[in-house]
């Protein structure tokens, strides 16, 4: 059958503009055929090329003395953690597929990010995820939520890594556009870093993994457009199908193979499958690649070159092998019963040449495809809606008259409520590395010698047993804040992650970000993106936590509107000593409760209520300005806390975020759980100072930044307050741990909460909604 003619309609269907097509003609010096058009369409999609966002991303700090592989070079960044060890980590989204097919969309999102980690030569040791859905009142939202959580669990559990932390937000702006951001982290020794470059002319190119089918066809292009009802139905075929068992075998085989030294280059086949992996490896190597599609294992007869090149069938890897070492590849993949095929070789022409039945069906310049996609500097205009949201007059909102009900309602609000309905579906103990399980501010993992990939036989480090390492990780991102003030919201996303790490005793090492935004052709939405990135960049620089890589997901909108702009930030930190590992719940009766930071910021006209959970839940408003984030103050506080932790003074540390001080105190009292139906509730008696102009609701539920609640044995109080004064950090005693209730006194008011009732509201909220 002859190739279809290239028509303007066909070009449009491929999400390419007329100008882009002209650029293709110029680059090739001729018309492309359909297979080549398909290849350009995926390589130049937003998902693969970042054509709308590259100029903005240049603002991110990407270097530090710890960075071994910076952002943009390979599939994931790598950071040194000392003693010859390193971590590779990244976050990626799978939003559009999850909207259409929640289970498979989520499951393949996890699979994809895991592959990005082991393709760097690292053994993945944990997964984390950040999710957004509409309101749980909607049966459709519940369906998506159920499917996504089941999908994430399915992949991580079967593959065999613990899923140890995450966050879930519910807000109407995500209705129809759920966000599924999946993160993974792996460990390796410096000498084991693997690269995705096609090196060495004449080296054979191997394909390993299951046969290529028609699933996920052009998933990258699908991800780069708005979702409509029509597109959802039509694109069901674009959702990839995952097999974690196959990926587990594939990873073990690849790590074993890497240890032999036979690998010259390795890359996973993710977005744009065979297309992306061949042209990117050739571009990185400054070489060319030639493959014969007849050799590619195919699931069914009669697949066209277009289909084979664009398929996103999962769990496949591209491996460039040193000539002469082919037998090792075969031996290892046969041991693991993995399908493999030798499909081509490296050339020195710089061209990506694809043959089918011996005929050339595509002949394209690899570097141009991979690196020379057009770059757009989109228009950015401050949105109209800000006039309305910033017009909020706090005086028009009555102060609270029922604090006790307020806290109950907030603790039961799905965004704040315990996420145990989610994480009890995730294996979080496999591999014996999880030291702080889901439920505290950050997850803490240990890296022990058997966490590392197997070393090559002739490595000089064969008999060197590295010391144990302790890593903390957190993922954060408040979309409402970014909607109301993208720059400040961007800063806060990073500051909050850093704060969570500090609370667990960790120093930030690096960051990975997932930018989830709407259509970049809309100047108002692009302005949100631009400002948020500016905020993220400033904060990452300030915390010395460079961005090692990440993902951009645009076009998250449907006919009803765009999502709240949502940059999610995953930060990884190092804990020097296991004795520094700190959790968020109160420990002992009699410990003194101190608040680090100031509750009411005189620079904030909204007293911390702007964009707050309280304003949303109790007044139905998403307005005002989010609280201000002073990066210098934050960093000082985090440093001070780490110092006190190192002195052995801190029993617990928990930061104030959604729901403010009262919610954070509630969580300190009720969030500890040692086993099924075995919570450890411990009360607190709190006394707060308040001046005349302070609103009660702002004091208790405002989300002023830079605040951490610590509990400390009384012998340490003097030392801490003394040191705080010298460091000019506000620290105040607010109460004592003990009793059977949470009791907060403000002036002559006394508010009390029975701990069991509070715990029930918080712990079982989502379960009640989902299981009724």
């Amino acid at each position: 059958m002859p190739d279809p003619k290239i028509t303007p309609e066909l070009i449009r269907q491929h999400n390419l503009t007329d100008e882009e097509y002209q650029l293709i003609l110029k680059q090739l010096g001729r018309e492309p055929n359909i297979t080549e058009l398909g290849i350009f369409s995926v390589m130049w999609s937003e998902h693969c090329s970042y054509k709308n966002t590259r100029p903005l991303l240049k603002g991110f700090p990407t270097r530090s003395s710890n960075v071994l592989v910076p952002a943009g070079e390979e599939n994931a960044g790598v950071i040194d953690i000392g003693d010859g060890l390193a971590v590779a980590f990244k976050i990626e989204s799978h939003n559009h597929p999850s909207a259409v097919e929640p289970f498979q969309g989520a499951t393949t999102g996890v699979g994809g990010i895991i592959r990005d980690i082991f393709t760097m030569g690292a053994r993945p040791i944990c997964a984390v995820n950040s999710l957004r859905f509409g309101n749980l009142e909607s049966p459709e939202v519940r369906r998506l939520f159920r499917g996504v959580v089941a999908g994430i669990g399915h992949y991580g559990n079967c593959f065999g890594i613990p899923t140890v932390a995450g966050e879930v937000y519910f807000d109407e702006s995500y209705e129809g556009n759920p966000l599924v951001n999946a993160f993974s982290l792996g460990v390796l020794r410096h000498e084991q870093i693997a690269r995705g470059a096609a090196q060495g002319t004449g080296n054979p190119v191997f394909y390993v993994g299951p046969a290529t089918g028609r699933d996920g066809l052009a998933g990258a292009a699908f991800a780069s457009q708005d979702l409509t009802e029509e597109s959802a139905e039509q694109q069901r075929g674009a959702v990839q199908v995952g097999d974690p068992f196959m990926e587990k075998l594939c990873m073990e085989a690849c790590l074993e193979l890497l240890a032999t030294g036979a690998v010259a280059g390795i890359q996973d086949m993710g977005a744009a499958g065979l297309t992306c992996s061949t042209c990117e490896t050739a571009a990185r190597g400054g070489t060319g690649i030639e493959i014969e599609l007849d050799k590619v294992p195919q699931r069914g007869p009669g697949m066209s070159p277009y289909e084979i090149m664009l398929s996103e069938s999962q769990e496949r890897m591209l491996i460039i092998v040193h000539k002469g070492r082919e037998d090792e590849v075969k031996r290892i993949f046969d041991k693991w019963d993995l399908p493999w095929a030798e499909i081509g070789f490296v050339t020195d022409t710089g061209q990506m040449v694809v043959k089918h039945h011996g005929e050339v069906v595509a002949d394209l310049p690899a570097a141009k495809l991979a690196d020379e996609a057009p770059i757009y500097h989109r228009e950015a205009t401050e949105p109209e809606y800000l006039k309305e949201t910033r017009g909020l007059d706090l005086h028009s909102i009555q102060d609270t008259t029922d604090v006790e009900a307020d806290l109950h309602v907030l603790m039961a609000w799905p965004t704040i409520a315990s996420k145990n309905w989610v994480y009890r579906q995730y294996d979080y103990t496999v591999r014996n590395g999880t030291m702080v399980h889901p439920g505290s501010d950050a997850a803490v993992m240990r890296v022990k010698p058997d966490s590392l990939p197997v070393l090559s036989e002739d490595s000089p480090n064969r008999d060197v047993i590295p010391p144990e390492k302790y890593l903390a990780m957190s993922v954060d991102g408040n979309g409402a804040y970014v909607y109301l003030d993208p720059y400040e919201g961007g800063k806060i996303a990073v500051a909050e992650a850093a704060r969570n790490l500090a609370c667990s005793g960790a120093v930030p090492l690096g960051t990975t970000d997932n930018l989830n935004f709407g259509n970049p052709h809309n100047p108002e939405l692009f302005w949100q993106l631009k400002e948020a990135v500016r905020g993220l960049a400033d904060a990452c620089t300030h915390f010395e936590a460079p961005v090692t890589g990440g993902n951009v997901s645009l076009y998250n909108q449907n006919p009803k509107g765009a999502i709240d702009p949502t940059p999610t930030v995953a930060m990884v930190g190092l804990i020097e000593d296991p004795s520094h590992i700190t959790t968020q719940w109160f420990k002992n009766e009699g410990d003194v409760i101190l608040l680090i930071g100031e509750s009411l910021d005189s620079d904030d006209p909204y007293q911390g209520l702007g964009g707050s959970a309280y304003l949303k839940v109790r007044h139905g408003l998403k307005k005002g300005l989010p609280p201000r984030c002073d990066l210098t103050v934050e960093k000082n506080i985090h440093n001070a806390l780490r110092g006190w932790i190192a002195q052995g003074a801190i029993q617990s540390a928990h930061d104030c975020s959604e729901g403010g001080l009262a919610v954070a105190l509630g969580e300190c009292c009720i969030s500890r759980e040692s086993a099924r139906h075995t919570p450890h509730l411990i009360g607190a008696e709190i006394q707060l100072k308040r001046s005349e102009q302070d609103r009660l609701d702002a004091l208790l539920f405002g989300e002023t930044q830079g605040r951490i609640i610590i509990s400390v044995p009384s012998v340490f109080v003097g030392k801490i307050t003394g040191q705080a004064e010298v460091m000019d950090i506000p620290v105040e005693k607010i109460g004592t741990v003990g009793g059977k209730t949470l009791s907060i006194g403000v002036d002559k008011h006394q508010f009390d909460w029975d701990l069991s009732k509070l715990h029930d509201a918080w712990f079982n909220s989502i379960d009640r909604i989902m299981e009724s």
Partner: protein
Amino acid sequence: MTQVDTETELSAISDQGNASKFSFGVLQFPGSNSDQDCVNAIEVLGHEAHYVWHKEESLGHLDAVLVPGGFSYGDYLRAGAIARFSPVMRALADFAGNGGLVLGVCNGFQILCEAGLLPGALIFNRSLQFRSEFVHLSTVNSDTPFTKAIPADQLMRVPIAHGEGCYFADGSTLNEMESHGQILWKYATAQGDVEDHANPNGSVHGIAGVCNKAGNVAALMPHPERACQEAIGSADGQWVFRSLIEHLKDAK
């Protein structure tokens, strides 16, 4: 709950001077993922553990064999249904037939039931969801190689992580098992009560682990090998392995 001090235990073992190390085999199927945890647990207790690849037809000299957790063969068909046909399972059946000690955990439990080495079967959790949490186990029969070192009334707090952990056996099988002391562990509350509410998956009678009539093959759904160090949440799982070690010492 008794705190187990790993440091003290290990030094106690090495204080025995020439006390020999026992050799535990850990079977490895494609998709096993708690194999490494089994090795870790045995090494924490000062003994040796070796992997045995599923294609091996002989176990070599081993003092005991562990069949680990995971998703062998992707749980295709039914959990454990394919693994039980692996070449190594023939060797395992011989080893068990000769009185060798075998302990299965999670997927290992499923495999041993599919292979007919243990009575009953494991089906989907009644909640139809994967369940991952710490549970308390009450020891029902402390007179076996797998439970003899567990102090009386000692509850073990260990994690579960499974989708198909609901133990089922019909009435007459259960009666027989009960009369022969084959029920080893049940799910309990923190106070030690075996109640529905403590049961995470709907297993009949709250059964978490069983052994065969001969008393040399046992298995449980919870993961004692993931609870051998306080640092990762609990060291109570050590009691199960210490029982095996004690039994092996007594047999010498």
